[in-house]
């Protein structure tokens, strides 16, 4: 692995690891038992992706459990707290549409991540379907669910510009990716009777420096919980 290929695997691996942990936080708390299992399934898919990607870079456990906050290269979008169910679905929608498009391109190009992307893209297609189905039902559901879903897509919008910042080591046409993402997303939101948010997604007031190691406030607390067992009992296993 070259240094740039390492950087790409680290960025994508951290995305998958952090989102997996966030989704895992729903275990035992989801609105219904069926959804509890659905979210845990998606979390486990992402954890599997994270393990393969981080193993390309180094020791997966050391990378997951012994790095400090500033060393993580994940998008700020995936570290955002679960919020209500609509927030979690909006985060899933933004991320899974992006991930499917990106991994689809990686799978069809020759590169260090081709095999991993080809396997993962099938999982991600299901994640996107799950998020879209829920977006449709919440957006076009009751007045309450519509308001909450709109609030969620609005609140997370400013984190979506970062999705299209070039990642070192990935040879991708980011502008084309962004256009495809917007098309897909707009279609889903309109079907769900929701309004596509209009706020800034890039520039001065938009969020997004996760790839440079800058993270939002709640990420530190998430990491503390994720890492404390390994740090308290180094080398623990079962």
């Amino acid at each position, binding site marked *: 692995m070259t240094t740039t290929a390492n950087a790409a695997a680290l960025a994508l691996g951290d995305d998958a690891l952090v989102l997996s942990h966030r989704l895992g936080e729903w275990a*035992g708390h989801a*609105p*219904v038992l*069926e959804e509890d*299992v*659905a979210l845990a*399934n998606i979390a486990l898919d992402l954890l599997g992706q994270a393990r393969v990607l981080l193993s390309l870079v180094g020791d997966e456990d050391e990378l997951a459990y012994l790095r400090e906050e500033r060393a993580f290269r994940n998008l700020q979008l995936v570290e955002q707290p679960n919020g209500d169910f609509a927030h979690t679905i909006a985060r899933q929608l933004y991320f899974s549409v992006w991930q499917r498009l990106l991994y689809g391109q990686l799978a069809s190009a020759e590169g260090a991540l081709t095999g991993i992307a080809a396997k993962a893209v099938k999982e991600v297609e299901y994640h996107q379907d799950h998020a879209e189905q829920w977006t449709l*039902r919440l957006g076009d559901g009751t007045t309450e669910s519509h308001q909450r879903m709109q609030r969620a897509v609005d609140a997370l919008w400013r984190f979506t510009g970062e999705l299209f910042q070039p990642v070192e080591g990935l040879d991708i046409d980011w502008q084309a990716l962004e256009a495809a993402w917007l098309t897909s997303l707009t279609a889903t939101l309109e079907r769900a009777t929701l309004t596509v948010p209009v706020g800034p997604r890039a520039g001065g007031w938009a969020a997004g420096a996760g790839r440079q190691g800058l993270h939002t406030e709640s990420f530190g607390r998430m990491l503390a919980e994720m890492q404390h067992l390994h740090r308290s009992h180094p080398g623990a296993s079962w």
Partner: protein
Amino acid sequence: MSSSTDWPMWEVFVRSRRGLSHTHAGSLHAPDAEMALRNARDLYTRRNEGVSLWVVPSTAITASSPDEKDPFFESAADKPYRHPTFYEIPDGVKHL
């Protein structure tokens, strides 16, 4: 987790591989048929248990009553000629 839901109940049938018939696997709650299918995928096929799924509204099933157990089922046992026990099964036959 909320203990009650207004969602209807669905019965799930899984075909474990091609050539076999769908078998009842269990039930679940879902707001509509499309979500029931997805929940069934997550609940009943996540360890490669199946290649095809059916979901059926539980209300669409008419079940036999325990009270009618005798008239429904008792009479079959004492008619051995209804059982194919007088034939040898060739070695090559599976799923019989």
